[in-house]
């Protein structure tokens, strides 16, 4: 199918992008285009104008601050994230997720910023952003602001972003010594989208989990932290398979029935089951990395 007619503008800087968004009615940013273009072809989205972020060099790249915080430009592709050796060792969950998104073409085009800004229920990065406590950097008409991932990822395809705002980067705080993270997913074989994906981050000392952040995407209408699991993991020994499983068995507890995705690929019960299975797997892998 063909998309409806639209105008195209190339932004050469973030300021210009913000200005273009303000100038044009029903304008939308285009990053990798791997979510936006398919929805335009299906006429689910019909923006009147596209503002292209691909020519803003500042938006690409990965840098590390003195405090150990890692900041990734919004236009950085999954492929670039996957190839970064430091990310692979420090942010295991991000590496796991980015390296398994879609296929090679998607990884070469799709961007960190686009993924989070789109907040697709089947996307892989929202849960990772929650588990790794990421912060999004946003620029708009009133200057710049920072917003935490939990606050940003509001709902199904919904984020805390004004129509004229641009996500410029995402930063991940330095993980504490003795921590580890991992991402586990059950994917739709055709697209790779998560039917259920779990990101887990654990801080371990003396062989036991002291703190954990666990989040899901895919199974629910939007990514969420799993508070019951996090609480139950506290104090659990890294090698204590039974205790990890017991904590993981709480993965779907307290979640409203209506929040579950349910479709021809997997119904809500099956997704709830996958949440428990994959939580155990992600936590196990995170523990291995924390101790290994």
């Amino acid at each position, binding site marked *: 199918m*063909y998309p409806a007619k639209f105008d195209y503008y190339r932004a050469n800087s973030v300021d210009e992008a913000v200005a273009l968004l303000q100038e044009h009615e029903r304008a939308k940013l285009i990053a990798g285009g791997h979510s936006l273009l398919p929805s335009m072809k299906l006429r689910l989205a019909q923006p009147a104008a596209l503002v292209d972020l691909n020519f803003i060099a500042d938006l690409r790249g990965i840098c590390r601050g003195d405090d150990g915080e890692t900041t990734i430009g919004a236009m950085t592709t999954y492929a670039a994230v996957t190839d970064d050796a430091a990310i692979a060792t420090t942010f295991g969950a991000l590496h796991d997720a980015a390296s398994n998104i879609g296929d090679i073409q998607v990884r070469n085009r799709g961007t960190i910023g686009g993924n989070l800004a789109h907040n697709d229920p089947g996307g892989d990065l929202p849960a990772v952003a929650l588990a790794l406590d990421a912060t999004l950097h946003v620029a708009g008409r009133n200057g710049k602001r920072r917003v935490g991932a939990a606050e940003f990822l509001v709902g199904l395809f919904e984020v805390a972003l004004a129509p004229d705002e641009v996500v410029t980067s995402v930063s991940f705080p330095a993980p504490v010594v003795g921590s580890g993270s991992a991402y586990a997913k*059950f994917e*739709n*074989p*055709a*697209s790779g989208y998560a039917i259920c994906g779990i990101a887990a981050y654990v801080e371990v000392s003396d062989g036991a989990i002291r703190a954990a952040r666990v989040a899901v995407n895919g199974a629910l209408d939007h990514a969420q932290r799993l508070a019951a699991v996090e609480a139950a993991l506290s104090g659990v020994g890294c090698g204590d398979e039974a205790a990890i499983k017991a904590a993981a*068995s709480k993965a*779907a*507890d*307290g*979640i409203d*029935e209506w929040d*579950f995705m349910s479709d*021809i*690929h*997997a*119904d*809500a*019960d*099956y997704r*709830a*089951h*996958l949440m*428990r*299975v994959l939580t155990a797997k992600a936590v196990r892998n995170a523990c291995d990395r924390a101790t290994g």
Partner: protein
Amino acid sequence: MSIRAVGSSRSRYGARDKVLGRTRYPGDIDMAGQAWMKVRFAGQPHARIRTLDVSKARAHPGVIAVLTAEDVPCNEYGLIYFDQPVLCGEVVRCEGDQVALVIAESEQAASEGRDLIEVDYEPLPIISSAEAAMRPDAFLLHPERGDSNILAHYKTRYGDAPIEEIFDDCDVIVEGVYRTGMQEHAYLQPEAGLGYIDESTGQIVVNVAGQWMHEDRIQIAHALGMPEAQIRVEYSAIGGAFGGREDMSIQIILALAAWKVGRPVKIIWSRHESIIGHHKRHAYTIRTKWGASWSGRLIAAWAECIQDAGAYAYTSSKVLGNSHLTVTGPYEWEAVHVDSYSVYTNNVPGGAFRGFGGPQGHFAAETQMNKLAERLEMDPVKLRLKNVLRDGSQLPTRATMPPGVSMGPVIEAAARAAKWTRQGNDWQRPATISDAATRGDHATATLRALPGHRRRGVGFAAAFKNVGFSFAAPEENWATIELHGGGEIERVVVKAVGADVGQGAHSVFRQMAAEAVGVPLERVELQAAHTDLVGSSGSASASRMTFMAGNALIGAARLASRRWEDEIRPATATFGYRPRVTTELNYETGESDPNISYGYVAEAVELEVDLDTGQIELLHVLCADDVGRAINPRLVEGQIEGGVVQAAGYALMENLVTEEGRIKTPYFSNYLIPTIYDIPRRTESLILEYPDPFGPFGARGMAEMPFIPLAPAIVAALHDATGIWFDQIPLTPDRLLEAFKRSSVRAFERKA
């Protein structure tokens, strides 16, 4: 040059051009001055057309013509019954019904015109299941065809006493309700073609990818009310068919459009249009009950088979005949009582698909056999060998099996290759059939319990399938051979128009012709492009093409060689092969001499299942297929591997979902077919050659057979791994987990 043509893996005819991208499929062909066509589909499963307003479409810039039911001279078609309108004028009965055609200067203008057509529909009750359609008060979908929605009902009544009395004497009874889903052919090349007028002959020409060009011509001529000679059908390269091109999709409308506008008209369907617009493998529900003795002798079988035919007949009644025949498996019986029903609904029509009823019948039969083996605590191979059809066996149709029955030897060969061990008449299932290398450290696990949440299992199933049309459908195949040269034969021109749908038919035609004439393959030139070359080859279906065309080629070669010896130059002969005539099923008793030949196949499967997620991984599939004589062994392997992969999709993941008559999975993003990640880790082909007494060079048909036993073999392996029987396919992960939850295999709590 001394290499014999038959029996050698010569490279596929035309392979080089395909690899280089030079082969032209119908969608690749353009003609000067061509127009484009788009179809307006009904888009709804059942409605009466109140008004159809095409005025806006006609007025749209670029639109040349809009055609509706009124434009079709004889508005009906169908391979078995003429029960389908070319363009619907009064009622639409399925989503894919065609309502109007828009022909325009460009594809885009045609699309726009199509969307400007205004149809006012009065909704009619939607019959979305065969069971609902069989209720006495159900809305009649084809009142002109009788007072029920049942389009065919076959009975088999075989045995000396009423079936219930015979069951009373059985030691063991096994039962099941088996459900199989629809399947999409998913050929790489969606429907595409050109219609045009050949100014030199005045003929209307249709260039498409099909399976049976002479039947296409019959259907087109009938709908256009013209003599067949007025129509020519040409096939370009065909990008897969699997039965999905046997019925009409774009053939008639291309002819109609070219005739009406007097210009070349081109159409290319999108994947969405293809999935909505052509038939599917039929969904079945089969209830069945088998009785046997403690010694493992099959005694009585009862079955009720219900087939969802969808909105039109297509070849449903013929498919039904095949499942009717195979639902009792390749075994001998004392008594059989089967009722089979084909039923109209508002679903997408069912029709031909590799196996043609065999997969559904055998899914029930072979799972029954495996359940019976479990009940009798007898190895499934041993149980099969005790009951298997042999030369001289009688079918429940009271016909004697055609000679050359190899079911027993095929089962034995498959079992041995899959590492079954034999002592006397006892057979022992192996713990594993795959190589130690792929098993890692699990080779010792007799319980097939792996560490953690994974289990392994081994399963077995067998099948038989007719070669050639069944039940009195007329069989014929024509070929012409011309021998050119002086002292020696320098060039052989073969005219045989059987469709090469990708299976390699044209390669084996050449190989068989070279062998029959006795010349090197390189001297044989094949002409196969259109209907005016030579008579019909029949359909590229029913695993029949090598068998029938081979016999035609041998006949033509023999006649031409005789003329050559009489010094006639070029020596030309045409031969039409017609095998023994079969008979229809008797409507009351099921008596019939159904088929002239069969192919035989057996498969063993090893798989691993994840109890946590319900995902199945196929580790090893062994397929032993009796092909009589492998004309080209590599092409045979290609058919085995392709058949196994396609059947793995059918058994595990291909889930065509319909809701109230609408297909919910019209894209490959939601209708999942196997990719390289999903196929068996290893597929092992065991080519067996027990000659068919009537086959050319002993060859039997083979291309459908490898598909058929895979689903029941997988179900048996899954049972071996988990102790659970699954009576429904596809075996999607959520279905597996549902079953695990209900059993003791693994605790699975529901969410609060």
